[in-house]
């Protein structure tokens, strides 16, 4: 192929290699790596209420930016992780926790899939056992004779 085509193709391939940058927009600097780790973890454990399928770390929404700032300020002010989470839950409710808390009203949410799996496995076991017992029944002599007759009949007729 000619030079221009080749260059375009190489450019196209190089562009495909460009991956999205998984970075939060604003830069929050910490003097302490422990605090930085706490900030990172908290932003991943809190939900963005605007883009409700993202955590604070991933969301570009204005509210997410504000809440990340709030988390940053609270860490710098010496608040514990627990205090920060409680602060958010007091204002936005349990839904702000990206991982649903284990409470009486969420037990069904957490246990449900496993319960359904167990029910499904139990139903499967019952079904398989029933089928097995069905095929294990021997044929009565009359049924055996009838089977032989049918096979002989069949054997004498042309294949359809």
């Amino acid at each position, binding site marked *: 192929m000619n030079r221009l085509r080749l260059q375009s193709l190489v450019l196209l391939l190089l562009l495909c290699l460009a991956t999205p940058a998984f970075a939060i927009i604003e830069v929050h600097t910490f003097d302490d790596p422990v605090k930085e780790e706490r900030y990172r973890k908290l932003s991943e454990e809190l939900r963005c*209420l*605007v883009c*409700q399928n993202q955590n604070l770390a991933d969301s570009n929404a*204005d*509210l997410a930016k*504000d*809440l990340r700032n*709030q988390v940053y300020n609270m860490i710098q002010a010496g608040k514990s992780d627990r205090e920060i989470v409680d602060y958010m*839950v*007091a*204002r*936005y*409710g*349990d*839904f702000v926790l990206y991982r649903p808390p284990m409470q009486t009203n969420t037990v069904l949410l957490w246990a449900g899939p496993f319960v359904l799996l167990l029910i499904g496995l139990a139903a499967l076991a019952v079904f398989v056992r029933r089928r097995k017992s069905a095929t294990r029944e021997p044929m009565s002599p009359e049924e055996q004779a009838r089977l032989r007759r049918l096979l002989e009949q069949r054997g004498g007729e042309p294949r359809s």
Partner: protein
Amino acid sequence: MSEKKKASMARYLIPLFIFIVLVGFFAIGLNRDPRLVPSPLVNKPVPEFSTASLEQPDRVLDAQLFRQQKVSLFNVWASWCVSCRQEHPFLVEVAKSGRLPIYGLNYKDQREDALNWLGALGNPYTASVYDQDGRVGIDWGVYGVPETFVVDGKGIIRHKHTGPISPQVWQEELLPLIERIENEAG
């Protein structure tokens, strides 16, 4: 009916029953708006704030606003909010009728833009809190604009409505509560 027939009928009835129960769950669940987040602030005292008024920059507004009447509305709005335009004419009407005061929370806005917006579309607010950085909004659990809170004279948040207020919302959701609060003793 023979025993065998009854047993096999049961086998078909169980999945049918499970199906009907599932349909029931879906019928209820799918008719709800999954984006609505219930507010944990209902029946709790108003979050404290102390912020400048939008119209009068040297006047400070705080939660005392709500104690001046039996019941009032606190409406979160902004000039950049498209849905707010939808509910605004209705809010202006309510304010004109003098039914109850409407206080505003001007959320993450520029003073000039907000004042121009009110100038053009009318100002239903007895006073508006100028929450430029959104800190007051965070304390009130604001996540989408517009939102409206019903606050009683003791400073307790009684209800939160997310989204624009239509005459139907007013009639069915807000007015009965407002009347109930007004009839409360004390």
